[in-house]
């Protein structure tokens, strides 16, 4: 029986093989099956022969019956046996998978159940699985293999269907290549080459492509993956932080509010002071260093002209300052900055100064002598810098003393005082300005200029002894435009020495002032600026002391040079008037020349005409005398008029309705139609599509260089003198190969089988799969 069964198996395999053969498999199958039956029968027969020979006839009958049954059974549907997997195949067809145990469902919990017992499962995956268990949504089944392949082909095809093809396809990349790739059998021949190579090899320098010494390579490898990861994370974090920080600073910098910045600066300053104080206590060395730094900054500031209103911008502002409050403020601010920076550090110098000034204004002569002495102490009187410092020194001394007394009280009040100071300086600046202006005006008017001359003369006469000194000082003042100790000191001196003269001068000045006022009121009031109106000089000057007034005069003397500035508007207005006169004349001339033709009305007439022509006419279809009396002088009846006069519907509004100066012709132009496309070309579906393609310009007049290049790149590019080979099969399969490189090896056997099949049948199919063409 073992033999039999083996035979059976054989026949079965035969049958299977035959079933694989495509065309006439059915017929063959029957044959095979028939054989099988026969064999079986033969076996039976053999057995039977030994046992009962005499019943041969009956036996034959039975066999025949059996055969008939077998044949008839062939016709009907055979029960399909489920495919059974007997060997480990690398790839399974999705159709031959055995669906055993189809009935009972598998729950996720069955699969996950073992998870709790295994400690290796990380908490994260556990969590994920749990959420998965809870969600009721079914996961979409993956696409069938054919479909995914089609999608892949589609994608590959889209990749392949690029806009521009460059031939030849498999060009070598341009650029230098390593020497050993170009020349395979290259050897050092000349002595120089040999020497070089000997050197290289002696120092273990790499000769070939990866140009790294062994040490370098080792060091490259040294960093482990985890380290690298950690480092990368660190770097990432740093970068992120940096970007946040940058964004923040950028945002802050963009804030335009001055108040904000002022507050910010104040806060910073406060912080700094606090820190500094702490530092003094905790780390005196660092504090000293900080002090040095500040000193350095102060020195630098004092050396530079940065905040001294001497730059271009400051000059322009100085001009504007008369009219513009903002400009004035800006200047003031700059000066303030300068003051801040040039301040000696720990002191409240300004407060001191103010007090002094107040005292001065109060008219206390007792305080002064110190300064006078100091000034006398100054060795190098020609150097303004030196002098400035000297003059400041006593103040410092004083302040240091005062600070000891008032340090605790004043710390809170500093800000207020500062503000007060600002106001003070503002007022003073205004005063000075006003003075200077007055001076200029004097320069304008000859009578006053005479006076001025006198004044100067008198002054020079009086100041002969200390001429050089004052001159320098004046210059300095004019430069800085700021009240300073120096000035105050000198003023004192001057006051003492030339009391009488100044008094006289003041009188003359006031006279001139009055004169000026009269003249101005007569001529024009325009150039009088608002600040002058706000606090007029007679009000402030009498209130102020002689000293103040005198100081103003001194400043003015320098500023007289700027008189031209005021002359400009006057001259300008005159010129303007002339200009306008000229224009008038021109216009008059033109009007005269073209008196006859009224272009505008002509145009309007024409437009009206066109509009009228465009309107539909009323068609009169009435027949005279029809149904009524005929003859001349008869009126049409209303009924007839209504019925037989045809009015056409009004046309759509003209395009130039809203454009009064334009006539848009709405006639169709025959000559243009010759050049127009009259039917929609094939690939376009709507006329708007077509129009939009036509409307987009391609040229460099309308597009940037790069766009033009992109738009106008040719579809096919060939290299001159290069042979274009036909598409190589490797080229074709490239994309596909990259996609399936992973399971290539495992598939090898299968593919060979497949190849054979395809070769048997439709070769075309293979090509198709190679070519990523869409199938239709």
């Amino acid at each position: 029986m073992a033999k039999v069964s083996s035979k059976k198996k054989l026949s079965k395999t035969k049958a299977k093989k035959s079933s694989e053969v495509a065309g006439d498999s059915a017929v063959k199958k029957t044959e095979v099956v028939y054989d099988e039956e026969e064999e079986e029968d033969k076996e039976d027969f053999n057995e039977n022969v030994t046992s009962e020979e005499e019943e041969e006839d009956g036996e034959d009958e039975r066999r025949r019956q059996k055969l008939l049954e077998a044949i008839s059974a062939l016709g009907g549907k055979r029960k399909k046996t489920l495919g059974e997997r007997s060997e480990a195949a690398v790839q399974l067809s999705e159709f031959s998978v055995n669906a055993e145990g189809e009935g009972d469902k598998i729950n996720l919990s069955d699969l996950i159940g073992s998870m709790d017992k295994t400690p290796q499962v990380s908490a994260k995956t556990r969590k994920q699985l749990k959420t998965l268990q809870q969600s009721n949504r079914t996961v979409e089944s993956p696409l069938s293999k054919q479909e995914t392949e089609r999608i892949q082909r589609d994608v590959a095809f889209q990749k392949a269907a690029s806009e521009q093809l460059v031939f030849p396809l498999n060009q070598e990349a341009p650029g230098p290549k390593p020497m050993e790739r170009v020349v395979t059998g290259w050897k050092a021949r000349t002595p120089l080459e040999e020497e070089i190579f000997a050197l290289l090899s002696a120092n273990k320098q790499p000769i070939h492509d990866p140009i790294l010494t062994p040490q370098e390579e080792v060091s490259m490898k040294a960093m482990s993956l985890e380290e690298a990861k950690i480092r990368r994370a660190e770097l990432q974090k740093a970068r992120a932080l940096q970007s946040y920080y940058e964004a923040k600073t950028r945002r802050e910098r963009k804030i335009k509010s001055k108040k904000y910045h002022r507050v910010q600066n104040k806060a910073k300053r406060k912080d700094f002071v606090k820190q500094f104080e702490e530092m003094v206590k905790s780390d005196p060395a660092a504090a000293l260093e900080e002090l040095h730094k500040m000193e350095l900054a102060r020195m630098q500031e004092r050396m530079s002209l940065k905040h001294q209103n001497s730059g271009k911008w400051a000059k322009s502002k100085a001009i504007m300052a008369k009219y513009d409050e903002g400009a004035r403020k800006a200047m003031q601010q700059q000066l303030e900055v300068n003051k801040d920076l040039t301040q000696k550090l720990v002191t409240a110098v300004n407060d001191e100064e103010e007090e002094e000034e107040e005292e001065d204004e109060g008219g206390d002569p007792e305080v002064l002598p110190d300064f006078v002495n100091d000034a006398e102490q100054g060795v190098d009187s020609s150097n303004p810098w030196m002098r400035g410092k000297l003059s400041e020194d006593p103040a410092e001394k004083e302040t240091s003393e005062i600070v000891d007394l008032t340090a605790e009280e004043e710390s809170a009040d500093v800000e207020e005082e500062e503000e007060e100071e600002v106001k003070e300086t503002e007022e003073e600046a205004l005063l000075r300005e006003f003075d200077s202006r007055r001076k200029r005006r004097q320069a304008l008017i000859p009578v006053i200029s005479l006076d001025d001359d006198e004044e100067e003369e008198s002054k020079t006469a009086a100041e002969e002894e200390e001429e050089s000194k004052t001159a320098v000082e004046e210059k300095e003042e004019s430069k800085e435009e700021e009240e300073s100790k120096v000035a105050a000191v000198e003023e004192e001196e001057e006051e003492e020495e030339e009391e009488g003269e100044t008094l006289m001068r003041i009188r003359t000045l006031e006279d001139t002032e009055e004169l000026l006022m009269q003249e101005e009121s007569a001529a024009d009031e325009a150039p009088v600026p608002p600040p002058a109106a706000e606090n007029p000089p007679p009000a402030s000057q009498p209130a102020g002391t002689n000293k103040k007034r005198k100081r103003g005069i001194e400043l003015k003397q320098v500023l007289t040079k700027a008189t031209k500035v005021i002359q400009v508007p006057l001259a300008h207005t005159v010129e303007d008037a002339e200009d306008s006169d000229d224009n008038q004349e021109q216009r008059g001339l033109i009007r005269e020349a073209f008196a006859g033709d009224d272009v505008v009305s002509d145009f309007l007439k024409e437009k009206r005409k066109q509009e009228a022509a465009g309107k539909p006419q009323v068609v009169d279809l009435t027949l005279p005398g029809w149904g009524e009396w005929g003859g001349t002088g008869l009126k049409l009846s209303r009924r007839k008029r209504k019925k037989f006069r045809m009015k056409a519907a009004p046309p759509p509004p003209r395009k130039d309705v809203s454009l009064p100066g334009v006539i848009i012709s709405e006639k169709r132009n025959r000559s243009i139609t010759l050049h127009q496309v009259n039917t929609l070309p094939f690939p376009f579906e709507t006329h708007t599509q077509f129009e939009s393609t036509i409307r987009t310009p391609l040229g460099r007049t309308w597009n940037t260089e790069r766009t033009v290049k992109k738009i106008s790149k040719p579809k096919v590019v060939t290299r001159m003198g290069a042979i274009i080979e036909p598409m190589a099969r490797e080229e074709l399969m490239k994309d596909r190969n990259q996609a399936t490189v992973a399971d290539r090896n495992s598939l090898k056997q299968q593919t060979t089988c497949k190849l054979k099949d395809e070769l048997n049948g439709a070769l075309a199919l293979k090509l198709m799969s190679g070519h990523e063409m869409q199938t239709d």
Partner: protein
Amino acid sequence: MKVKVLSRNPDDYVRETKLDIQRVPRNYDPALHPFEVSREYTRALNATKLDRVFAKPFVASLDGHRDGVNCMAKHTNSLSTLLSGSCDGEVKVWNLTKHECVRTLQAHEGFVRGMIVRFCGTSFFTVGDDKTIKQWKMETPGYGEEEEPLNTILGKTVFTGLDHHQKDAVFATCGQQVDIWDEQRSSPIRSFTWGVDSFSSVRFNPVETELLASCASDRSIVLYDMRESAPLKKVIMTMRSNSLCWNPMEAYYFTSSNEDYNLYTYDMRYLNKPIIVHMDHVSAVLDVDYSPTGKEFVSASFDKTVRIFPKDVGHSREVYHTKRMQHVICVKWSADNKYILSGSDEMNIRLWKANAAEKLGVLAPRERQASNYNQKLKEKFHYHPQIRRIAHHRHLPKSIYHQSKELRVMKEARRRKERNVRKHSKPGSVPVVSEKEKHVVTVVK
């Protein structure tokens, strides 16, 4: 008075060296550049006109054959080399750059029917009416050496065509049957027949190199696989195909030149109808060759013209003819996609430019940009009637012009008749048959 003066910083417009590009500031505000469409239209019109002005496609004529040129072969490695075989059995090797014949050999008695250069470029094969296949060295024999073939195979019947495998030492001939030969053997390793007695052309697929196609005299095109013992498929058409050529870039397409004045591009996977019917010739089309880029092909016709067709367009974009050119028997597109070579009955080989108006030689970058831009403009406005008229205008010999007119009338008449028949018969009994389906009789598997 304040005077405003133009002040410009020379840094903005003066280049540092002479080699720098001139800086040209541009303002792309569309308000400043109005009428873009009309301006570009004018440019396109000018470009099209200039295209026609510069269209001088004829480069050179190579004369030297003493009978009609029957076949040509491109050299696989050298662009400047061309081989040609004539009806008196003479084979000539040409240097195209010098326009001169470098070698002449008497290869066969009777016609040279086909020739092909081996993929390595060191030797070439010829077949002739004397029933022989001969392999020749590419080099000219040295002084005193005799001009002798490397190898000669005596066949039983006349060979009419020849093609060589892309990579292997295998070639195919056609005659009474299609034979596959190994270079080392004197008898074919395989021969295919399918009930016909003669084939006119056989071609290997350049990509799927084991595939072949041939044109048979029973109006059929047959596909073979070299590894199989039987042919794969054949499509029978209404008239005989003279030759065919595979598209070198999309090798599932091939184009066959037919006796019915048309060319048919087939997809080898769907042979039941051609993808496109290319019409324009007014006589039998004798030869066809694809451009190496696979975008266009050139056809030679008995009507004494050479036409260039885009691969997916039904009508030719270009027609070349000269007064002296007779029936064009063979045509080749050069491997650098720049030239076309045509061999004709009156013993001359002619060299044409593939793009009639293209400037030969190196283009300066600005020239190239301008030509690219003009090309795009022409493309953009090619629907406009005036531009199309100028772009399509070609001068044709009187006979061809009239014949094409006549053909058009005939076609229209046929169409009208068919329409009338359909109108007067039972609806559905006279189906509409498209032009593509008309020419295919059956596909046999």
